[in-house]
Each structure stands twice: as C-alpha cells, then as structure tokens.
C-alpha cells in the first residue's frame, strides 16, 4: 500500500537516508526504530510531505506522491508535541480538516462525537488544549488525524513526552483502534519496548540505513547484526577468538554450581529486580548477565564458582 522505492534524502550536513526500500501493507503497523539521528523521522516526514526527496519515489496505492504538498497527500501525521492549535477549542481543532473538505455541519458534528468516544474523550469538546494533560492532548491529536481518514497514518514518537504509565495505556489503545479500524500505520520511536509491543513489523535503523526488518519475534530471536542484537532487549556479548563475538540473551543463560558447562565463572552480583533476579557472572570472556528464579538465588552467593549453559545464541564476526 505504501511503497518507498530507492528513496534518498540527504541534509547539508551529510546526514540523512540513502536508497531506502520499504513496503507497508494495508492494515499493517510498521515501526521505524532507532536512536536519534538514525533517519527514522526523516523517512516519516518525507512520507508526510514535510521534506522533499532527493531521489527515488514514494507511492501510496500505486500513485506517486512525492510531488504533492502535505495538504494534498492521503496521509495524516501526529507529532510528538505541539499538535493541537492552542487558540482553538478541541471541537474546532477536530472540525478544521472536515470543514476544509466541505463536509456539512451535522455530519461533522456526528463524526466528531463518534471519534471523541473512540479515543475516550467525550465531553471535552469545549475545552482548550491548554486545559488538558499531555496524554489527553495526544488522544485528541490522534482523533484529529483519524477524522481525516488517511490512507496511511503517521506517528512521530507520539508518546515519548508522556509518563511511563500513560504511555503504556496509550499504546494499548492505539493498537486496539488500529486493529479495529484496519488502519495502515507508520510509527516512529526510539523505545524498543514500544516497538516490540505495538508492531506487526519492526524496521531497525542505524545511521541512515535499514539494519533489519521483520516481525518483533524475528528481530528479538534472530538479530542479524551485532547492532540489532545490542539495540533490542538485553544481550550478553562474549569476545571469542578469531574476531568472533558470541551473543546470548540473559534469559537463555542457565546457571549451575561447579563446572562442566559452556563457560565457567564466579558469581559477581545478585540483584533483585521485582519479578526476577538478575545475576552477573565474571568469566574469562567478559561479564555475563543471567536471569534466575528466587529459589536459585537462595542457593548462590557472591564469589561462588558456577558454570553457564547457553540456549539460543548468535555469533557475529567483527570486521
């Protein structure tokens, strides 16, 4: 549905993205994930029409959109902040786009009240954005974007400025609305947990390039590069001979007393993290983090000799 073909956008500083190829199917929620400066927002803004492409094409439903200004594109965007017009009431914020499309007054009112109910903000129509919390403002911003009935909904770190608890709530609600209405979504975030929780597919980016693309399970269990392995979740990296690096997740490390497993070491720390215990072990190849149960934690103490067995693991070669 949304196709990005060999798209390049470079800034004067040399940053930007080169030869990006990406397809988002109808009804899919795809997340562009990466640290600041990796190019994820650049891609989103070129789709939205706020940046011109230097090369390549962007197509929605087969039609190229790169020559269209933002107001003519079948997309709508939710920014991280400063979405709502502060001098207009919530109702006027929502009505703005509908009025431009010459939708009659009664129909406008009907759609708006339906949408307000969907984002659980009924009754707030007469408020000004300044009278609402950050989370409430973002809900209205999402409502406004949905009212425009876009073919692709673009979200640029919409929850990054919110409290952790609200963020989680908004994530769930967005996912529910998206799946119920079968909306095509391009989502940008630097929070890998958010990406894993929300997405049908994750696109991990690094310095203007796509490192890996796949389902959250794919990305998590089969990271194809050291960068992706490091970026997603927690990972142990053990330096091996011949420039090889062994990567294994803490939950795939089995700890037993004594020796004879894949790697021997000494217990370094044991930390209680709520619903699991984190143990770090000193080995010849580096410090290994493992997750153990309460009972296991009772049987170990600092300095104990232990042996580690690795379950699922990856191997990378350093260039």
């Amino acid at each position, binding site marked *: 549905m949304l196709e990005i073909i060999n798209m390049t956008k470079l800034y004067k500083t040399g940053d930007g993205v080169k030869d990006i190829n990406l397809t988002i199917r109808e009804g899919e929620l795809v997340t562009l994930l990466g640290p600041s400066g990796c190019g994820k927002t650049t891609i989103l803004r070129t789709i*939205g*029409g*706020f940046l011109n492409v230097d090369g390549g094409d962007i197509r929605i439903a087969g039609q190229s959109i790169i020559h269209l*200004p*933002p*107001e003519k594109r079948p*997309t*709508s*965007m939710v*920014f991280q*902040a*400063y*979405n*709502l*017009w*502060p*001098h207009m009431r919530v109702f006027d914020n929502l009505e*703005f*786009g509908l009025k*431009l*499309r010459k939708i009659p007054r009664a129909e406008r009112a009907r759609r708006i009240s339906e949408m307000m109910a969907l984002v659980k903000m009924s009754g707030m129509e007469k408020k000004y954005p300044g009278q609402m919390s950050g989370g409430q403002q973002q809900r209205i*911003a999402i409502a*406004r*974007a949905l009212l*425009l009935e876009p073919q692709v909904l673009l979200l640029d770190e919409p929850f990054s400025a919110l409290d952790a608890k609200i963020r989680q709530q908004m994530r769930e609600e967005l996912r529910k609305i998206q799946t119920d209405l079968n909306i095509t979504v391009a989502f940008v975030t630097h929070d890998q947990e958010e990406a894993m929780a929300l997405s049908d597919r994750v696109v991990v980016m690094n310095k203007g390039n796509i490192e890996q693309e796949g389902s959250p399970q794919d990305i998590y269990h089969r990271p194809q590069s050291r960068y992706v392995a490091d970026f997603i979740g927690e990972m142990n990296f053990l330096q091996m001979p011949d420039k090889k690096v062994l990567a294994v997740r803490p939950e795939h490390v089995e700890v037993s007393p004594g020796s004879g497993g894949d790697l021997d070491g000494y217990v370094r720390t044991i930390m209680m993290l709520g619903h699991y215990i984190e143990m770090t072990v000193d080995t010849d190849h580096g410090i290994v983090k493992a997750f153990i149960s309460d009972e296991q934690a009772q049987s170990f103490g600092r300095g104990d000799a232990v042996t580690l067995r690795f379950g699922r693991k990856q191997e990378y070669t350093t260039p």
Partner: protein
Amino acid sequence: MSQTVVRPPQIRRALGKKRAGGLAILFAFMLFFYGPLLYMFILAFANSYNFPAIMPNEFGFMWWDYVFKQPNTLVSITNSFLFAVCSTALSFVICIPAAYALARFQFTGRKLVMFLFLLGNAFPKIGMYTSMGIIFYKVGLMGTFMGVLLIHMLGTMMQMIWLPAGAFRSVPRHLEEAARDAGAGPLRTFFKVTLPVAWPGIAVALLYAFIGSLGESVGTLFVGLPQWRTMMTEMYGVILDFPATAGAVFALLLIIPNFVLLLLMRKYIGAETMAKGFKMS
C-alpha cells in the same frame, strides 16, 4: 523571663525603622518620577500662574480653551493620528510577510538583510533625516504627505519587523505542519494558525509602532514644516511662543492618546497577552 517579654516591642520598633526607611526611598523616587507630571497636570488647569509661586492662583479651563482656539491645534492632532494610522497600517502590510520570511525561510542574504535593517536604526536619526531630506528635495517629496509618511515609516517598519519576526519564530513549526496536514494551503495556514498564535508579539509591535509614530518629531519637523504639522512639531512652537500653562495643556494632549491606547490594549488584548508579547521578542 523578663527579657522575652521586652524583646517583641524592640523588634517591632526595629522593623518599623527599616520599613519607614524603605517607604521614604519609595516616596522620594515617586516624587522624582511623577513630580514633573503632576506639576504639569496642575499647570494645565491653572488659569493664572506666577513663577516662582508653586501653586497657581486660580484654577480653570482657560488655557484649554485658548489652545483649542488656535487654528493649528486641531489640524495637528488630526495629522498626528493620520500619520500614526497610515504608517502603522502600511508597515503592517509590508513588514508582516517580510517578518515571516525572515523567521521561517533560509534564503541567501538573510543575515545581511537583518543586519542592514538593524543598521538603519542604529545610526543617529538626524543623519538619516538629513540624507533623506537631500533626496526628498531632489525628488520633490519635501513638505508632502508621502514624505512625512516615509519618515514615520522609518520607525514603524523597524517595530513591525523585529518583534513580529521573533513572534513568528516562536510559533512551533508542528502547528503549521499540522494545518497543512489537515488540508490547509500555506496562505490559509498563515491566517488561521500562524498569525493568531503569534498575535501577542504582533499586538505589542503595533502598539510600539503607533505610539512611536505619535512621538515622531525631528524628522517631521525637517520634512513636514510648514505644510504638514503634527502635535509633536506644534509642541516646539507652543513651548517657544506661549506661556507654560499652554505648554502643559499641549503636553497633556500628547499624553492622553498614549494613555488611552494602553488602556484599550490592556482591555482588549489583556495584560497576560501583552506580557507574552514582550517575552516573544
């Protein structure tokens, strides 16, 4: 035991001394600041006054009557407002788009344009007026409405570029992008989103421009006399030719519009918006 009972009154006296001292300084400052104004106010309503007496002998509206009977008075008042309205309005139309361009677009020579503009206002105005006068003589603008208007616009344009550019810069880009996203073209976005959000800064700029134009004197004197007279240029004549009481009346006439403007601004734009406007620069 007796010590704790004695201490409170001692403290009260000490505090009293400090407060009395502070009040005295405040009083002296107020006298220095408002004294001349107050004196002028009294003088304006003094029917007869003989220096060096402090208070007038008789109070009344005699000098108000006198001033308004002068043929030039009403003309000069009208002209002052005419030039203020025209120069502010014209500057608004010309400078607001320019301010927006300076705030939002990165074009070659942008820094140069801003610098040149600032430079024009950094020089002593007399120099500017003299060179303008020379050109006006050649072009035939001396003593014309357009000539005086251009003089007034020197000041108003500065106000209508500098503050509004700051106000536009402080409008978050996402607000404009969201409007485009919702289907509004660039012009509609400007009028429906950018301008309303930047309004506090622009309102303050309008106020400064208008009041500045009312206070424009030297340039108008140079270019306008004798065909075009404003209240400020009339003032010179009044001070020279008439007694202090007439001067006081005229000065009050000058202050009243500024005062009314500030009150109107405060009522329709609000103290909070104005504060925001000053912050925006």
